């Protein structure tokens, strides 16, 4: 808190000293954001961005978790698919933007696709590694009690991997939020990324640019906090307490 306060003070001081005609003071940022909040457009932009993240990230979860479990469990699947995903993973989501525009145009689908593509790989990798690093003694104990495959998966494999899945989701949602803003800058008419570009283009409203950046940061923090809540579940705590 102190650090943030200090940072704002320095920012204010520098802007006041330099007489910059464009770069806003903190007060201008707050009043700019306040006007947007008042006429409701700010909420619409936030909602649009969150909705895209929800759909893209949700789809990524639906694909990554089953696929990761399967790849971790079946060696053949691991050795065929893992090199492919390891190769796709380090490609920056930004590099996918032209491809997304080519495939899906500049509607709502493109940013959703970009979010999907950027968050699905870390989650697949994390889930796969989770399965492959399950402590052998637990699998042995399960084999010892002679449980069915279904029980083995439901009561041992899945709960053993769940902490890794949650870590994957944290990484995934972080990347998703990063990407949605970048994707919305391309062309669209809603979302926080659009708000940034639009504010700049419509008369250098840098107060709104900075306001959007801060809002993006705060929402990112909240999203991370929300996934962190998952780590508090009793059945996964064992993995995080040390």
């Amino acid at each position, binding site marked *: 808190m102190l650090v943030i306060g200090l940072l704002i003070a320095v920012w204010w001081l520098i802007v006041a000293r330099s007489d910059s005609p464009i770069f806003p003071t903190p007060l201008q940022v707050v009043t700019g954001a306040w006007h947007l909040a008042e006429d409701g457009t700010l909420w619409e932009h936030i909602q649009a961005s969150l909705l895209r993240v929800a759909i893209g990230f949700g789809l990524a979860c639906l694909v990554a978790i089953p696929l990761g479990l399967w790849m971790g469990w079946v060696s053949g699947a691991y050795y065929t698919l893992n090199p492919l995903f390891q190769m796709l993973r380090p490609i920056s989501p930004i590099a996918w933007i032209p491809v997304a525009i080519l495939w899906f145009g500049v509607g709502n689908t493109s940013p959703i696709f970009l979010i999907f593509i950027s968050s699905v790989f870390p989650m697949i990798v994390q889930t796969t590694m989770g399965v492959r690093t399950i402590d052998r*003694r*637990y699998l*042995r*104990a399960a*084999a*010892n*009690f*002679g*449980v069915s495959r279904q029980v083995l998966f439901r*009561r*041992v494999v899945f*709960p*053993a991997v*769940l902490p890794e899945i949650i870590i994957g989701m944290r990484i995934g949602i972080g990347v998703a939020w990063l990407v949605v803003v970048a994707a919305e800058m391309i062309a669209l008419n809603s979302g926080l990324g659009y708000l940034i570009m639009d504010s700049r283009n419509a008369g250098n409203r840098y107060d709104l640019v900075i306001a959007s950046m801060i809002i993006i940061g705060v929402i990112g923090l909240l999203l991370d906090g929300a996934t962190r809540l998952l780590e508090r579940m*009793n*059945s*996964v*705590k*064992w*993995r995080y*307490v040390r």
Partner: protein
Amino acid sequence: MSDKKIVIDDISKNFGALPVVGGVSFDVGDGEFVAIVGPSGCGKSTLLNIIAGFERPDRGAIRIDGVERIGPSRNGIMISQQGSVFPWLTVQENLMFGLTGASHRDQVELAGRYIAMVGLAGFEAAYPHELSGGMLKRVELARAFVVKPEILYMDEPFSALDALMSLRMQTELRRILDEERHTVLLITHDVEEAIYLADRILVLSPRPTVIQTTFHVDMPHPRKLSDPKAQALREAILKDLGL
């Protein structure tokens, strides 16, 4: 001790070019408690893993009740040094993990009985990370006992506990074994633990391991290690181990 519960018939196993178990044969009677001691790294654990069905021998066979054993079975539960209580399940869920068939109510009741037997009543809903090492060991014992296995395989079960807790668990185990009849195979490096618990003690040689000497422990339970007979036996075993 009339019928032979477990027959180990000339088991040997190599890890690559390294011979680990080199032709081990012995029988375990029904309800008998056999302890196996040996120098560290001699292949004790490998031997037990083979007998319990987790590893395959290169040569030889294991017969349980006259039937050749392939793979693990709930008829013989392994209790190991690191423990394998599932950390994502509560104490009660851990005990109910191996129970099949019975209705949920019966399972809860049965689990409750065994939780009480190992002195953990009141901890049914606790998660393993909230328990101490000794309590975890009790959970693991209870989880094994609740499925009523005929055989218990124990691989240095108490060696990760402190000395006092280890002694307490030995007493506890003995008390439970007096209530419920089990055939037990115990691997240990603690000669006193073996004398306190077992009917028969097998001393293994260094790798590739074979049975070097067999000692019978003819003392009634509960045993006192200060007993001159126990002391003499201890000396003899240690001497056999080269100490």
